[in-house]
């Protein structure tokens, strides 16, 4: 069983001292970026029109990649994989995808409007929702980065606790 360091930093260091998990984080960040890119381009007639600083997008996909890699590690590491790590992996996939849908031009966001229309919301109500999201798209992306960072922090905290639980169980306590 892998030795995890103490504290969240120690756990982070232990995970990413292995090249495999660095590779998973990098590869998943790349995939997430292209999902994000594709969704923005689909919404904007083939133009990658993102009216916010591009480094925020990089931060979003980087934190999503790290979260996904940590989730993969926890699944591999923990016997209770259904309770640990999977949610983080899903969030790592979902947030860049949502980011791609909200980060396009606020004028139209046809992808999101189509989804809302499909759900039965009438056109003008849908546009009201879409324009509200468009107005706050920068803050939404910042919130997504914060959620990713928070989940990374949370899962790094759970891993040493899970190891201690197993040790106590093994010692019959």
């Amino acid at each position: 069983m892998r030795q995890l360091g103490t504290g969240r930093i120690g756990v982070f260091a232990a995970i990413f001292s292995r090249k495999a998990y660095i590779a998973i984080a990098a590869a998943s960040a790349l995939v997430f970026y292209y999902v994000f890119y594709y969704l923005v381009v689909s919404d904007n007639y083939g133009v990658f029109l993102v009216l916010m600083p591009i480094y925020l997008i990089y931060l979003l996909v980087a934190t999503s990649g790290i979260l996904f890699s940590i989730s993969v590690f926890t699944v591999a590491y923990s016997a209770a994989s259904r309770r640990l790590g999977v949610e983080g992996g899903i969030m790592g996939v979902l947030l860049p995808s949502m980011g791609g849908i909200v980060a396009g031009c606020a004028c139209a966001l046809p992808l999101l409007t189509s989804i809302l229309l499909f759900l039965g919301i009438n056109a003008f109500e849908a546009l009201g929702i879409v324009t509200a999201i468009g107005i706050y798209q920068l803050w939404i992306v910042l919130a997504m980065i914060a959620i990713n960072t928070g989940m990374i922090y949370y899962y790094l905290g759970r891993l040493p606790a899970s190891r201690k639980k197993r040790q106590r169980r093994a010692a019959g306590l």
Partner: protein
Amino acid sequence: MPRQQQARSPVAKYESTVRKLKIVSTAALILGIVAIFASLATVILLASELPTSTNSPTTTVAGTGGPGSTLAGINQPLNSTSLSVINNAPNAYFETAGEMYLNDTIQNPIFGYPSFGSNAHTVNGFVANNKTSVVYLGSITCIYCGENRWAMALALSRFGTFSQLFTGYSSFGDGDVPTLYWAAEPYNSSTDDVHNYYTSNYINFVSIEDINPITGGFKLNPLQTILSNLVSIGNKTDLSAFNYILNLSSNTTTAFAGTPYTIWGRYQFNGADAADFGNPNQSATATGLPYLSLMTHGQVLGELARPNDQFGWTEYAAADVYTAALCKSLNNTASVCTLPAIQGIEAKLT
């Protein structure tokens, strides 16, 4: 003695591993702190640059900022020379751009051909005063409306004349792109405007321009607000056109899904018919502004007066698409409809 040396070796290895992990941990901690500060700095920087008030009609904006926050020369009527660039654009430019579009040598996105899918749908058309109509519902705050008005003006110039056009911008939060306004707009207010200075023997031009403070981001007034503003204005044709859009919105294909929303005779377009923000090799700025945001009205008009790059030709090609839609709706009664490129594009419209 040998046993002691063997006992020290695993300990030494362990200490070495711990040292390496500490270095990695420290590096990760530093990167994490840098990321946190970068995010906080972005929040603070952007919060300080965003306008604090989006509802102060009495605020006058001098427009002294650079790209992304400039309103230099807003609401100025085009002089006769600039107006002539639109009204008297040579048919040859429309033909050349149309041929480029049909030959797939226009590199900026234009609807329908070849890769981006069509955003045009067949409708019955809005008729008023026994004439077919071009109906426009957009917003001065909207970047694609800003981008699209250049091509719209060129297309409309084939069927009539503008006695006035005005310089404008999209909102600060939506690219601040230079554009044309159909009339001088109260850009610090929240209202709707239906004025334009277009006349034509062939068509009506119904323009419904939703207006919110230009120093904010994209904002569209709710349906009820637009409707009550139009009722206050009291123009029956505009109200009927808006009602026509509401009726089209009961069908998901033609539903109003964003601005600009235009109807060209028997063709309804969801969104702009092109995305012309510059030449393909001109990338956006670091803060996400498209290249068009860096251009002045004079530079755009210069491109339209003498198109010689993808940006200029795309404007004419986008105008060709609208022109073709109108020609098909008018059974080719206008002279521009005899252009081979226009007829070629008409053939591609369903």
